[in-house]
């Protein structure tokens, strides 16, 4: 035994001595040629699977799994269902606000591109600072009001990192009937667009409360053809979570706009009788099915519309998004959206109507 210890000790000494020598042995460095091979293989459609690698020790994972199941069972046993429900049924981070609201749940592009040509924002210089207020009413087919909220939208001049920009500040309570005792979610967004071409620069979204969290934050920045950023949650009855945002946007579906800009969008477009075009409305980009939503717009008439803000000559526009048809009225003088009627809200007997109250 003593001999073994001595022998082992000497081998350990040898290992200690040889370890730096082994680590210092020269190894090749990856070159550009190797990367070019990789790119060429990917381009030619080569794919495959990598070996499955576990993320921890199996025994530990099993133990954690058993503990998780036990904890879940305990929660189910101790808390009645009614107390587990939170103020908002939707706890998965995705966009559900804005002028297009629920229809703007964006999703990954379809196999084919848009059928209409992209809208051309040729009148960016025509946009002016503005302050708008909208009412959003949900009612059923009998006309009974289910919910009514008001939202505000302010577009003002700004600079971001030295770039002349439009800053759009939106404040909107979450639409929809609330369960008894629930607190209505409020979303506050700050969006930046470059003034010269209306390209997206950045967006900060805050919703509070949000499900079981006291607040959710989504920070987006737009770099070339990608959305980058991060979602974080705060407070609530659970430890905060965070998710990175890194999405590439397909060129076929450009231009991309934020839903907060949609009420002013047509002010930058030369809308005429028979005009049509496509645009993609961005979501929060946290979930795979909430990155962007292709939207088609067609002028289907001209109409005088009366809303709380006044009576305006408008273009009557059919918006088609995700197989749903929405009627939208855009003021001819400045393109501002003054009314929207969505009668096909997820197959429910709920009609959503947005009206311009001020602006």
């Amino acid at each position, binding site marked *: 035994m003593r001999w073994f210890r001595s022998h082992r000790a000497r*081998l350990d000494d*040898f290992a200690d001595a040889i370890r730096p*020598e082994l*680590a210092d*042995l*020269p*190894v090749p460095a990856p070159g550009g040629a*190797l990367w070019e091979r990789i790119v060429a293989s990917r381009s030619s459609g080569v794919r495959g*699977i*990598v070996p499955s690698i576990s993320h921890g020790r199996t025994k530990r994972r099993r133990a954690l799994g058993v503990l998780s199941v036990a904890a879940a069972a305990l929660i189910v046993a101790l808390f009645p269902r009614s107390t587990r429900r939170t103020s908002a049924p939707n706890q998965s981070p995705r966009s559900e606000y804005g002028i297009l609201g629920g229809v703007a749940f964006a999703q990954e592009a379809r196999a084919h591109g848009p059928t209409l040509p992209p809208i051309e924002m040729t009148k960016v210089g025509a946009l002016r600072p503005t302050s708008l207020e909208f009412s959003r009413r949900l009612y059923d087919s009998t006309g009974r009001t289910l919910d009514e909220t008001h939202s505000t939208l302010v577009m003002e001049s700004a600079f971001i990192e030295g770039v002349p920009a439009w800053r759009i500040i939106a404040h909107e309570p979450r639409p929809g009937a609330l369960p008894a005792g629930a607190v209505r979610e409020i979303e506050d967004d700050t969006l930046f667009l470059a003034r010269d071409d209306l390209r997206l620069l950045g967006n900060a979204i805050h919703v509070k409360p949000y499900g079981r969290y006291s607040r959710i934050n989504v920070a987006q920045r737009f770099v070339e053809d990608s959305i980058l950023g991060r979602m974080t949650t705060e407070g609530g009855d659970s430890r905060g979570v965070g998710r990175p945002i890194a999405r590439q946007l397909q060129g076929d579906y450009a231009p991309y706009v934020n839903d907060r800009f949609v009420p002013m969008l047509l002010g930058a477009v030369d809308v005429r009788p028979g005009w049509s075009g496509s645009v993609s409305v961005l979501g929060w980009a946290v979930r795979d099915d909430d990155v962007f939503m292709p939207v088609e717009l067609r002028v289907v008439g001209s109409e005088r519309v009366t809303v709380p803000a006044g009576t305006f000559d408008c273009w009557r526009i059919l918006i088609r998004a995700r197989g749903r048809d929405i009627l939208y009225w855009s003021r001819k003088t400045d393109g501002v959206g003054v009314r929207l009627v969505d009668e096909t809200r997820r197959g429910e007997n709920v009609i959503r109507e947005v009206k311009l109250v001020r602006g």
Partner: protein
Amino acid sequence: MIPARVDRHEYDLTDRELAAAASTGDMRALGALYERYAPAMLATAYRLLLRRQDAEDVVHDTFVRLPEALRRYRDGNLGAWLRKVTVRMALSARRSDANRAIVTLDEHLTYGSGDPTARVALEQALAVLNPALRAVLVLKEIEGFSHAEIAELLDISEGSSQVRLHRALRALRAHLEKGEPP
């Protein structure tokens, strides 16, 4: 070395952000991951296979498959996960190429400070070491894996990993001290 049009913002992204972007097929994000991790992956593969071409094939195959693999990748240490994937790919390549038994020293590799003769001797000792022993030696003493991790990677017990390391060190010492074939 910048492998592709990797913009400044890719350098600033975290591993998770790059992994998320690369999983969608974003080649710039994949390029950023390549720049960040390919050197270590190539080194690991080379130490296991001792042939540059074979090691490059492992890195190539890993990166070609990476976007799809990242869709299933869960949060964790991306670098550690990639190293383990590399080890598995290299071991698989070694098994499929076991009959070839070609060991070459790449002339282009430059030796740093120290005695180049001693380093060549060490390389030769490694090259003629039983591949099963060499794998454990490399993974434990150079790559820093624990015996538990090595056991999982090689599909052996922790005890076997310890025994193989002991034998590898003994054989290596014998070769270096006496010129004795391991």
